[in-house]
């Protein structure tokens, strides 16, 4: 009896479902991951349980433990930072300004900045915190 061999699949192994899975994972990570401007230096936010949900967008001000400042991920001098902030607040006073201060940063670097932002007309200034570890 002559058994005929089943014709081999001309396309090789079917990898289309694998492509679907890979694309799904890729889109999944792209969507749920929030692309935020990170600071050029290390910033560990203070830990507390009383924070509210932080939406994305707005202006991010990072303040390191030794007082260095970064505006939207770029380290800048205080003068340039203040000028840039004044322009953006004048254009949109309701823009959310997120202050991402290191937990060890001195308040003398943070509170005067908050006061200046209020005096300049900023209406929405928030401090970025991290929820307590349970």
């Amino acid at each position, binding site marked *: 009896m002559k058994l005929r061999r089943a014709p081999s699949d*001309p*396309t*090789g192994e079917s*990898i*289309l479902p*694998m*492509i679907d899975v*890979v*694309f799904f*994972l*890729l889109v999944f*990570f*792209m969507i749920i*991951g*929030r*692309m*935020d401007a990170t600071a050029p230096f290390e910033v560990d*936010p*203070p*830990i*507390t*349980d*009383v*924070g*509210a*949900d*932080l939406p994305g967008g707005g202006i991010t001000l990072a303040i390191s433990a030794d007082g260095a400042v970064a505006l939207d991920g770029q380290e800048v001098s205080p003068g340039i930072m203040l000028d840039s902030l004044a322009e953006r607040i004048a254009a949109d006073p309701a823009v959310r300004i*997120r*202050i991402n*201060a*290191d*937990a*060890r*940063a*001195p*308040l*003398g670097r*943070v*509170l*005067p900045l*908050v*006061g200046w*932002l*209020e005096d300049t007309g*900023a*209406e*929405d*200034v*928030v*401090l*970025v*915190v*991290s*929820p307590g570890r349970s």
Partner: protein
Amino acid sequence: MRLDRQRGAQGTRLITLVPLVDAMLILLIFFMVTSTFLDLDMMPLTEAETPADSIETVTAEGAAAGSSGTVLLRLTADGLVVLRGERLSPPELLGPLRSAIGARTDVPVVVLPSRQAQVQALVTVMATATAAGAGAVRVLRVETAP
């Protein structure tokens, strides 16, 4: 010499998909490695749209115009909190602060921080004040006279 080529039933050359999978996997691993998932919250600092139990910054004049039941906390540079003359560490603050606030729900708590104190110390004090039942927590910002 016979060269094997992938050909479909009609003899047309098919697109090789294996390199596409490699590219997708590389991109996927790239996103998995480079992106960090940050679990972040926020504490509002401005007065405009904050509810009664959030944090506001006011000048010394604004705090003095508050209610007579205001509780004043002074945060020192070394992270200790002074309540009615008693120096307390942040973990020890909750009980005395609850006693100072009592059963009232509209008692504002004003925090006067040292400029050398750390942000974490201030946030801890504000969280403790909220847990103790403060109606509103305000941070004093001392301004120099013109």
